[in-house]
C-alpha cells in the first residue's frame, strides 16, 4: 500500500497530512465487528475510527514526529526532489506501532543537506520501501545522477528552515 493513499497531500503541501476519517472508512468500512477489514487480532483497534465516523468528531492521532516550532519543514519539496519517506521516518513498512526512528535534530538534517550520499531516488520511487537502482548502479551513483539532473542543491544556511 502506497504512503500517499493516506498521506495524500504530501506532494503538494508542507504537511504530509493525516487522512480524514472518510479515507480510513474507504477500507475499514464495516462497522460490524467480525466483518472484513476489521483487525481480527484486536477488534477494538479500529474503534476510534468507527466512533469518529459515527459521532463526526476527529480521530485523535498521536503525534510522533515533531520538529520544533521555529523550524519550517516542507514535505512537498523533499518528496518531489527525490527524498524518500524512509530517509526521515525509518522503516515504516516494518513498524507495528510507529516509532521515532531518526533523531530529527538539526545536525542530522544538515548531514544530509551537506552530503546527499544515497538520499535521492527517482521522484516516482520515493514511497517504495524496497526500491533499488536500475541499471545496476549503486545507490550513491543514482543519487549523484539525480542531484545533477534535478539541480538538487539543498540550502544549508539558517534561512532555509528558520524564518
Amino acid at each position, binding site marked *: 500500500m502506497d504512503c500517499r493513499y493516506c498521506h495524500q*497531500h504530501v*506532494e*503538494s*503541501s*508542507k*504537511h504530509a*497530512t*493525516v*487522512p*480524514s*476519517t*472518510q*479515507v480510513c472508512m474507504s477500507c475499514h468500512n464495516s462497522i460490524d465487528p467480525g466483518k472484513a477489514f476489521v483487525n481480527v487480532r484486536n477488534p477494538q483497534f479500529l474503534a476510534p475510527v468507527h466512533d*469518529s*465516523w459515527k459521532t*463526526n*468528531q*476527529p*480521530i*485523535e*492521532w*498521536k*503525534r510522533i514526529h*515533531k520538529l*520544533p*516550532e*521555529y523550524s*519550517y519543514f*516542507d514535505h*512537498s*519539496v523533499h518528496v*518531489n*526532489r*527525490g527524498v524518500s519517506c524512509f530517509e526521515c521516518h525509518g522503516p515504516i513498512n516494518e513498524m507495528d506501532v510507529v516509532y521515532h526512528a531518526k533523531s530529527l535534530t538539526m*545536525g542530522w538534517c*544538515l548531514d544530509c543537506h*551537506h552530503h546527499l550520499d544515497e538520499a535521492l531516488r*527517482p*521522484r*516516482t520511487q520515493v514511497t517504495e520501501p524496497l526500491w533499488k537502482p536500475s541499471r545496476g548502479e549503486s545507490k550513491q551513483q543514482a543519487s549523484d545522477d539525480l542531484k*545533477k*539532473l*534535478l*539541480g538538487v*542543491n539543498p*540550502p*544549508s*544556511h*539558517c*534561512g*532555509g528552515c*528558520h*524564518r
Partner: protein
Amino acid sequence: MSDSPAERGCVSAPCESTTEDTGRSRNPAHKEHWRSLEELSGATSASAREFPGFTNIYEGLGEAELASEPEALATGLSRRQFISLSTAALGLAAASGCRRPDLQILPYTHTPENIVPGVPLFYATAMPKPGGCFPILVESHDGRPTKIEGHPKHPASMGACDVHTQASILDLYSPDRSKEVLKRGAYGKLAPSSWEEFDAFAAKHFAELKKKEGEGLAFLLEYNPSPALRLLREHMKTVFPKAMWCVYEPLGKANKVEWIEFVAGESLDVRYRIGAAQRILALDCDFLGSEGNTVANGREFVERRRVANREPAAQARDISRLYVVESTYSVTGAMADHRLRLPAAHIFEFLLALIRALVERAEAKDVPESIREIVAGWQLSRIEIPSVWIDEVAAELREFKGKSLVIAGYRQPPLVHHLCSSINGYLLGNIDATVSYEFATLEQSQKIGELGRALHAGEIKTLVVLGGNPIHNAPADLNLAASIVQAPTVIRVGLFDDETSQAATWHLPQAHFLESWGDAETADGSYCCIQPLIAPLHNGRSSMELLIQISGWDSVVTAADARIKAPKLVRDSFKKRTGKDDELTFKRFVQEGFVADSAGLPVKPMEPAIQKFHAGGSSDLVYSKHKLEVTFHPSYALYDGRFAWNSWLMELPDPITKLVWDNAALISPATAERLQIKTGDVIEIDNGSAKVKIPAFILPGQADNSIALHLGWGKQRIAHAGAGGGFDVYPLRTSNAMHFTTAKVAKTGEFYHLVTTQEHGTIPKEKAHDIIKEFTLDEFHEREHAEHHNDDPKSRFQWGYDQSKYRDAGPSNADARRIALQQAQDLSAPQRLDGHMQWGMVIDLNACTGCSACVIACQAENNIPVVGKHEVKLNREMHWISVHRYFTSEKAYNPGIVAQPMMCQHCEAAPCESVCPVNAAVHSPEGLNLQVYNRCIGTRYCSNNCPYKARRFNWFDFNKRRLDELRVPTPFSEAGVPETLKMQKNPDVTVRMRGVMEKCTYCIQRIERGKIGAKVAAAKAGDDKADTPPTSDPKKEYAQGYAIRVIDGISRIIVPDGIIKTACEQACPTGAIVFGNVRDEQSRVYKLKNLGNDYLVLGSLNTKPRTSYLPRLRNPNPKMGEGA
C-alpha cells in the same frame, strides 16, 4: 520668495520670520533634511539615540517608570516579594513538563473540497468603504483569513492596497468585538440577551409595523453602494412605505454631489484621470492620501512622474507638475512641486482670483463679454495671495489646456466645486480628457438632519441603526444622544459596543465583511462580490441578513432563513445588474470577485455655465489673535473613527506628524509662537457651542491661523491598551460647518505627553546628505549620465552592481564549498555570496507618498506585535519597516516633505553580524542578512551597531502578554493575549518571544515559498524528461516559466522575476518598492539598480547594503521663483 503674504490677512499680523532665517545653505544640491523642529534647532542630539529603547535595568521589576512619566504602571510589588514569588514560580515550572508534551493531530472526519492543509487559499472579495468598495484578495490558512491583499486584476487595485484595507483583518479578530446580543432591561441598563429573544421580539414588533406600513419606523445606515441592498430597498418600500431611510457618512462627497445637482439638475459623479493630467492644481484635496480611490490615484500620478521611460526632450512637459493649496500638510501636499499654505476658507477667494486671471488670459472669442463683466465685478481684496501663485499657475494651466486638472477637495463648499468645474470645462477644456462625469448611483435617502428633527419631535418610534456610529460622529448640533431616547425602540447592529450601542435598546453583534455575503460597487461603479471566508466568529449577523429578516424578503420568516437567503439576494442582484442568470457566470463572478468592464460610462454633463454663479459674498473669515480657523480632517489611521478599535492603526505613525496612539491640534510654528504654545500644551478650542481640550502639535507647513483637527479619535477603546486614544473633536462639528469653522483658542496650562516617532532611528546629521536625495529634472539628468560611478561604493559589490567585473570571476564550484558545522574556526569567515539568486531591493523615493500601507502589510505578514504608547515613547516600536518623514529645505514654516521607507538594508558587510557574540546575525549565500531567533541571547549589540537603526528588540513578551500586563510578574498576570488575535498570525512566520532581536527578513517565508514552488513545479514537469541530461539550454523551460539552468557549474532552479514579492512591495500602491534577484540581468531590480541615480543610504560607510534608493524628483516651475 516667501508665502508669508498669506498671513498678512490677519488683523494683527505678527512677525512671522522667527524661524525663517536659520542661515543654512541655499544650494539645492545640499538641501537640509531634518526630522523635527527640535532637530532643526539643534535641541536634540541624534547620538543620544544610538541605543534605541535603552532604559534602566530594573524595568523588568516594574520600577522602571521614568520619573516624569504620568501614565506610570505600578505593580504594587516590592522587589523582595517579587523575588520570592518568582522563585516559587520557577520551582513549579520545573516540577511540570519534564517530558515532551503529548500532542495530537486532529484531521477532518469528512474531507472538505479544495482544502489542502498547509497550503493557503486565496479568495476574491471586496471591502465595503464609504467611497465605494475596494476589491481584495484574502489569504486564508486552513480556514483562517490571515492577510488581505489588493485584487491583482481589478483596475482600482492592481494588487495594491491602502492602510485601512490591510488593517481591516485585525478588526475581524479584535478581542473588543461585540460578542453578544444586549438588551436594555431593568433600571435602563444594557444586559446580555440572546438572538432567540431578539428574534421573538422582532417577529412581533415588525409584524405590527408592517400593519402600520412602517409609520414611525426609521433606518439609519452607512453609505453602502450595494446593488443587493438597493434591491432589498425596493422590497422595503412596499412593506414599510412610510418608513424613513437615512444614509449618513461623517466624511464624504456630499458637497460635490450638491453642486452637481444644483448645476446639472442630475446626480452626477466626478471622475478624475490623474494619469492624463500634466499640470494639476489641488485645492484642499488630498487625492493621494484620503480622498477617493487613493490607490488608483497614486498609481496613475506616479506613472506620470517616472523619468525613466520618457524621451528627455519631452520630459519637461510630460512629467506632471503638482500645485497644492491647502491648510494642513497632507500626503498630497508632500508630493507637491509647489505648495501654498492657505486657510481652508481662503481657497474660495484664491479660486476667484485664479478665474479672473484665466479669463483675462483667454482669447476674446472664448469668453463672452458678459462673463468678463461678471468676473471683473468680483471684489477680491480680503486676502493677499502671492502674485506668482495666480499669474504663473494660470499661465501654466492655460498653456496645458486640455491636459490640466483643477481638483477641489470635499471639504470645500459646493460653490468651490462649481467654480472648479467651470474652470475644467469652460476655461480649460479638460472635460473627457482629465475630468469626466458619470451618473451617480445614489439612493434617494433623507439627510441626517431630517432624522434628527423627526427624532426630536418624537415622530420616530422604532429606529434601526445599521453599522456606523452616529451618536459619536453625527453633527453636534443635532444632539442625537439626547433625542434618540425619544424613540422607544432603537435597534443597533454594530461590530463594536460603542456610543450608539450604549444609546440603543437592542444591540446586535454585526458580522464582519469577511463573514458575510454581499455585493458592492467600487468608486468608479465597477461591480464586485463580497463572499464570506469564515463563519461568523461571534455569531454576528450582517446588516443585509437583518433587513431580509425584518422585511420578510422572499417570504423569509426566521433568522435561519435570512442567513440562507443572503446569497440568493446577491444572486438576484447579480442577475439584475448584469442581466445574466446562468449558474456558471455567477460562480465565475464569485470566484473572480468582480465583473470586468462594469464601471459606469462617462456622460457629458451640461456645460456648467459660469453665469449661474454670482459672487454674492466672499469669505468673511478674518482671523484675530484668539479666533482661528479650525479644519476637520479624516485621520490617516482611524479614518472617521471606524478603526478606533484597531491597535495596528492606533500605533501606525501618522504619515505627516508621525504621532502614534493620539491625535493633536496641528498648529503652525508662527501661530504657536504668537500664542505661546509648545507641542504638548493642552489648548481649549471653543466654537461657541462646544469646547474641546486637545494638546497642540507644532507642524511645519501648517497654514498660519489655521488649526487642523483629525476626526475619529476619542477615549481609548482598545481594552488593555493603556495610555493614548486621542481626543474627540466631533463636538466641534456642526451641520452648518462640517469641514471648517472658526473658534477661540486658549491655552489651558495643562500638558499632555504626545508620542511621535519623528525622531526615532535618526541617523547622525553630519551624514544627512547621504540619506535623502532630492533633485530637479536637470539635476536628475546630470547625475544619470555623469561618469562618476566608478568611485561609488556601489561598484564594490559582489553581486548586483557592475557585474562585468565579476561575471568572469564568479565563484567556482570548489570555492562555493559550504562551511561545515564542525569547522567551528570558520564561523567567523564571511559568507561567500554564491547563491544564484541574490536578493535586493530598490525603493523609489520619487514614487513613495508616505502612505504607510507597507507598514501595516508588513505587520500583518510578519506577526509584528503592537507595543502600546508607553513603549513607543521609549523607542521600542516593533515595525520592521518604518516610513521616515524628512522635512527638506531650511524653511521651518513651509518645508517640503520626503518620505523614506527604512528597514533592514541587508548589508553585504553587515555591521550587526560582526558584533554578535552568538552568531545569531548571519548571512545567507543569497545575500540575506538572517536573524536566528533561537540563537539570540539579547545583547542588543547588533542594534547599537546598525547604522540604519533597523533592528527591533522584544523588550517584553508582546505576543503573549496583554499590553497592560507587560511588567506584571508572571504569577499575577492574566492568561495572556486573546485567542482570536492568535488566529490572525501567519503560520509561516515565527512568533518571536521576549529577549530576541528581530528585523526585516525580505519576507524570507515568501522567498522560500517561491523557491519551493519552483522546485516542485520543475520536478513534476521534469518527470518525463528523466533521461535527458542536465542542460543549460534556456529554451528548456519547465512549467510556469520555471527552469533548471547550470550556473557556476551547478544546475539550479530559476524562479522567474516577479513571482516572489515582499509584503511591502505587494501592498505599495505606487510601485515604489521593487524586490528581486540582482544577479538576473533581466530582472526589474537589476535594471533599476543600474540607473545612474540609484544610490545607497550611508553608502560611504561601505556596508554595501542590498537595498538602494532612487532619489525624489521635484519638478518646480522656474518662473515661480525659489520658495514658492
